[in-house]
């Protein structure tokens, strides 16, 4: 099968791929992080001459909606599926259906227990959290008090980051005195941080499970006239700019662009029947003042398109 679908953005088609498309289903497309993944995937499609459809629900809480999208993509018989599952276990039944139909399935960013998957490309969120924890610890002294700001309750990605950061911080001898969720919402993060500072005047550093929350935290901290390191995750433009301005202490980027790019690149390999590594690490970027400028230029270059 594989007729050309009307919504595709890339018109060029590789001859050897016989007009096959690659469907990329992400957790959402409504945040900068996932926009980078999309940019990477589309760039790969363009360079390698294959049509790429990138879809994702309007928010990360729409779990079943994502499953529906996967089903609807399978229904269009794509050459390969690249998926980043919001709730890993939920996508398994429909992805099994895909593998049974002979469609290669590649997971990016978040892994799922799928028997016949082609590969998983990404870094564990736990690892990213750990890196962030290490970075924060390196800016503090043993025994300092720190706070953790998590995402929405039950969001596995942000939960894993928090777990990783907590482990790294505690291993380095820090004291975690507060751990509160802020729904990945900047404004809520600010309120939550204000309340935490009310209770814990001695906090010396904060880790937030995404950049938006980190920036909200930063506002609350600055409003108090405090100057303590705040670390985020994701490496969004806004966060990187803040780092350059000397405000945010750092952020951990999980190379979303590379994930998207590698996902499509390896999907093509799989379609062609070439061998694909079972596990591909897309690497982690620790962004601090030193490398922020360079990172910013890269981010701007990929979003311009």
């Amino acid at each position, binding site marked *: 099968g594989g007729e050309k679908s*009307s*919504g595709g953005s890339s018109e060029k088609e590789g001859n050897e791929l016989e007009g096959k498309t690659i469907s990329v289903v992400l957790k959402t497309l409504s945040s900068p992080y996932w926009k980078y993944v999309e940019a990477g995937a589309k760039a790969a499609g363009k360079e390698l001459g294959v049509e790429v459809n990138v879809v994702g629900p*309007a928010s990360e809480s729409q*779990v079943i909606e994502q499953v529906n999208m996967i*089903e*609807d993509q399978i229904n269009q018989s794509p050459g390969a599926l690249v998926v980043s599952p919001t709730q890993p*276990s939920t996508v398994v*039944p429909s992805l099994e259906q895909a593998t049974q139909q002979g469609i290669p399935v590649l997971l990016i960013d978040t892994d799922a227990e799928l028997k016949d998957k082609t590969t998983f490309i990404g870094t564990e969120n736990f690892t990213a959290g750990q890196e962030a924890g290490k970075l924060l610890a390196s800016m503090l002294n043993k025994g300092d008090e720190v706070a953790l700001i998590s995402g929405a309750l039950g969001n596995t990605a942000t939960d894993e980051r928090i777990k990783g950061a907590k482990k790294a911080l505690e291993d380095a001898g820090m004291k975690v005195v507060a751990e509160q969720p802020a729904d990945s919402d900047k404004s809520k993060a600010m309120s939550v941080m204000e309340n935490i500072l009310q209770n814990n005047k001695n906090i010396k550093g904060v880790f937030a499970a995404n950049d938006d929350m980190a920036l909200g935290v930063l506002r609350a901290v600055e409003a108090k006239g405090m100057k303590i390191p705040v670390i985020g995750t994701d490496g969004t433009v806004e966060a990187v700019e803040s780092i350059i301005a000397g405000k945010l202490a750092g952020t951990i980027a999980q190379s979303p662009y590379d994930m998207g790019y590698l996902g499509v690149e390896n999907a093509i390999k799989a379609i062609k029947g070439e061998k694909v590594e079972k596990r591909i690490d897309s690497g982690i970027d620790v962004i601090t003042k030193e490398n922020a400028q360079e990172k910013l230029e890269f981010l701007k270059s990929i979003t311009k398109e």
Partner: protein
Amino acid sequence: MRELAVNSSETNVEKKSVKHYLSKFGALIGLIILCTVLTILSDKFLTINNIMNIARQSSINALLALGMLLPILTAGIDLSVGSILAISIMLMGIVSVNMGMHPILGILVCLLVGCFFGWLNGILLTKLKLPHPFISTLGTMNIARGLALIVTAAAPIAGFPYLIQFLGREFVGPIPVSFLLVIVMYIIFHIFLTRTKTGRYIYAIGGNKEAAHLSGINVDRVLVIVYTISGFMASLAGLVMVGRVNSAFPLAGLSYELDAIAAVIIGGASFFGGVGTVWGTLIGALIIAVLRNGLNLLNVSADFQMAVIGFVIIAAVYVDVIRQRKSKKD
């Protein structure tokens, strides 16, 4: 369909009945227009495979909406269905996966938990006399969601036994069992609402609570039944969901109440109670599912999808409004 057949046999009211029938299933026209447009735009839309996809994808919302119809018929609302769904399936997971007990027991737990929270909504409303079910169900919505997160410390549960997955996963021929369940439940509810006392009382309470009370109807009892059923349907929808994705997670069903309410209202029910049918609700649920599916097929991006869905909700209801205005003029 039934209604029409029955009424047509009485020739003197025939003309009225056709109109009546149309006015009941007005959203049908919206659905037909929608399907026509999608068939033109995508050659994948009108395939058996895709129609079965829609049938599956609509089933969770169709079940929730069917439950939601009852509170809305009584001029109430149930905001807690999504959360009740979550706590029901989490507890089912704990019983049947974590504790490894018999799947039937798991299913029972799931449905009973749903009934319990629904009953709680009813009791809060009628015994505590909270002024509007918006309050009681907003409360339970938070409580049930909180509990769903607490019970497994937010961890999802996967690997359910086949029996539990059956409803959400299996097919009879090409037809998903979940959709058969939807059909069966809709027929049962149709009979319940039109042919039983309690069913008629639900309409009566929505039409005029005071008059219903003065006619000797035990209003409180009926309301408790209504919310209990809504809770039950939420857990049944949860059961189907677990079967579909073979896992239970605490954020399941988040904000599903909006889709369910939208289905009921698109289907012609009134927020002021007393007006609405199960078939209208089914069409409402189908409109939403067809729309989402169609936009996915057309690879419309999520942000545009959102805008388009907003537009179509308005358009679908507007078609109904125009049609009703016309039929009134004739």
